[in-house]
């Protein structure tokens, strides 16, 4: 278990994420937030509309 008092070294994917433009980070974060509760469902109603809306909301 990492020591909480010590700052954790970023993983390569974390570094890559932080290198991306802020806008792209936000879109990805929001998309994953929508996907997370639904990802294991056979039927995922409206997920595509929700993702489209996220992109449109951020670029308007």
């Amino acid at each position, binding site marked *: 278990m990492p020591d909480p008092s010590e700052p954790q070294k970023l993983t*390569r994917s974390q570094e*890559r*994420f932080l290198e991306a433009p802020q806008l792209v980070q936000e879109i990805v974060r929001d*998309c994953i937030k929508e996907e997370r509760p639904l990802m*294991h*469902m056979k039927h995922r109603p409206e997920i*595509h509309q929700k993702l489209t809306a996220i992109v449109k909301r*951020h*670029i*308007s």
Partner: protein
Amino acid sequence: MKLICLTLRNFRQFKGEQELRFSDYEDRNVTIVHAENGFGKSALLNALLWCFYGSEGLSDDFSNKESILNQSLAVDSSTPDSDKVAEVEVSFEHDGERFRLIRSLDYLQEKADSRKTKVTLEFTKDGQTFYERLPDQRIRSILPKGIVPLIFFEGEGPSRFALEDKSGEVETAIRQTLGLSLLQQTIDDLKHQNVRGRLRGELKEKANAETAELLERLEKLEAQVERRKESKAQAERNLNATNEDLRSVDDALEKNREVQELQKERARNEDLAATAVAELEQVESELSKVIAEDGFSLFTEELVARGKAIVTRLRNENRIPAQVLNTFIEDLLNSDRCICTRCLEPGSPERAAVERLLTTAGDQNVNNAVGAIDNALGRLAQLREETSRRLEEKNKRRLQLRDDIRVYKNRAAEIHQKIGSKDNEEVRALEDKRSVLQDRRDSLIGEIARIAQQITDDETDLSALKQSIAAAEKSEEAAKLAQRRIDALEQSVSLLEDLLRLEIEDLIPMLNKQFKEHFSHVIDRDYEAHLTDDFKLRITQQLQDGAPPVLVNPSTGQRQVASLVFIASLVSLARERKDIQSIVKGLSGADYPMVMDSPFGQLGANFRRGIAQLLPFLAPQVILFASTEQYFGVSDAVADELTKSKRIGKRYYLAYHAPTLPKEATEFLKIGDGEFQQYFRSDEMCTKICEIK
């Protein structure tokens, strides 16, 4: 996730309400349920599965899946139908929240359709209790169905993970356990026609004719890539099925006494050929790398010789290093005085003499530069020698491997001739079938490689098309907005793909390291297990020191050990990963328990000991259902190790009430100095859970 308690109410042979509390202490994380075969171990495991997933969660070999309600209660005429209810309740903790999941099925519903159950999920957060609106959905996000075979399993079921053609299941297990499926799912959804297609549609409507045409070409090309990917996936499925058929034929040949030895010899040669082919691919890839990175040095011989000759000449002429530096002479002239204290007045013969020295004096910068060039030339010569040696070495190995492959394949071909010329009709038929299957396999392997190349080519074209679309002139504001949305979407997809790739690149070596270490702890030292880049669990054997390890056709025991160790390593890595702070919530692993019903199969003492030593320390929580044979069999192997580990937190046994005692079961269970009656003669059949304090 930590299991707290399982409560059964009239579930199968568990009549009335019965409870099993799991040990939730970190340093005593093992719960053992002793039960003879036929007493209800599988029913307990299936009670958990049913509670989490309903009837679709029940294991394949669980009989009478539609009969969930206790049978004696179902036929009891004194109890009203409305009171006849089977119920399973599981309490667990996950991500700091406490959950209570209850699934029930009443008598009438069971008769109508036992798959339709009632389910409620309540959770406590910050002291308050909430009811989940979509319980099944929440459960699947906590405990994805894809990881069930990893954490709830019976007997030798997991051993299939170590089969060559189960790499798909291994990959799924890794992705789901380590939280990577979320990334893949998001990528797939963003690329979906309903998202990317729709945004492109909007751009097409607003853009000029040229962009619209490019977009149309892009859509066609993407559809083509999707078709190719589907064809490739189909070819891979066919290849797996063909491999399965080939294995059956090989098994049948190995059981035939007439050709048994020949078949074994052929299998050995084919294994050797497969290992050599894998190494050849590796060596060729290393060769390409050496040529790409250092190959230029091979063409520098003349350049180095000329450079060295120039430096040597300058040295011989005493120009390098310079005897006197020009900066020193200039300092003397500027100060109008020599180091011998004579005056250097303008026009004086002394000054003229010193000025003449300027024509032979050297420059410090030139000194340094020539020194650096000399050094670089030396390093270049060294690199050329090193590159040449490495190329020669690798080329030699490549040729050796090619020869080896040819020899192994020739031997296999000779064996094919010998087996095919046998008089035994069954053998000939099997051998003919084998040839057909091998041809099909080779053709499928070729087809998969061809489609993979086509996909790579198409993807290069796709990338160029996307760049053209982005660069095309957009006159209207609306078209520009639509283009910006497409750009943002493509960048998001690209970011997600990079994250997925980096996560896999970082996690697989970590998993492999754990897998190798733990496997070598259990298995003899000559054997080694590893996870290949294409997600195959492989076992190799070191036959001679210094020689490359040989791929092994594993026994059932070795497969079971490799699979159990793989699962435990994966669960352990998921637990470690849970502690790594994640930027994107949900992009992390989770800690899962391991619930196992008789996992030791026919394993020998050493394998059992090794596994029993490892599991409690790798998995955060271990729940083991074991018969006397599984627990105390083979010289008390499992019992000894678990006792030594001091990890057993709770212990139960199942007491079986029935008219007859199942074969191989005993009336009493002995644990240490204690003796517990586990069988009771009774006209009514039922099982009770009893705790051993």
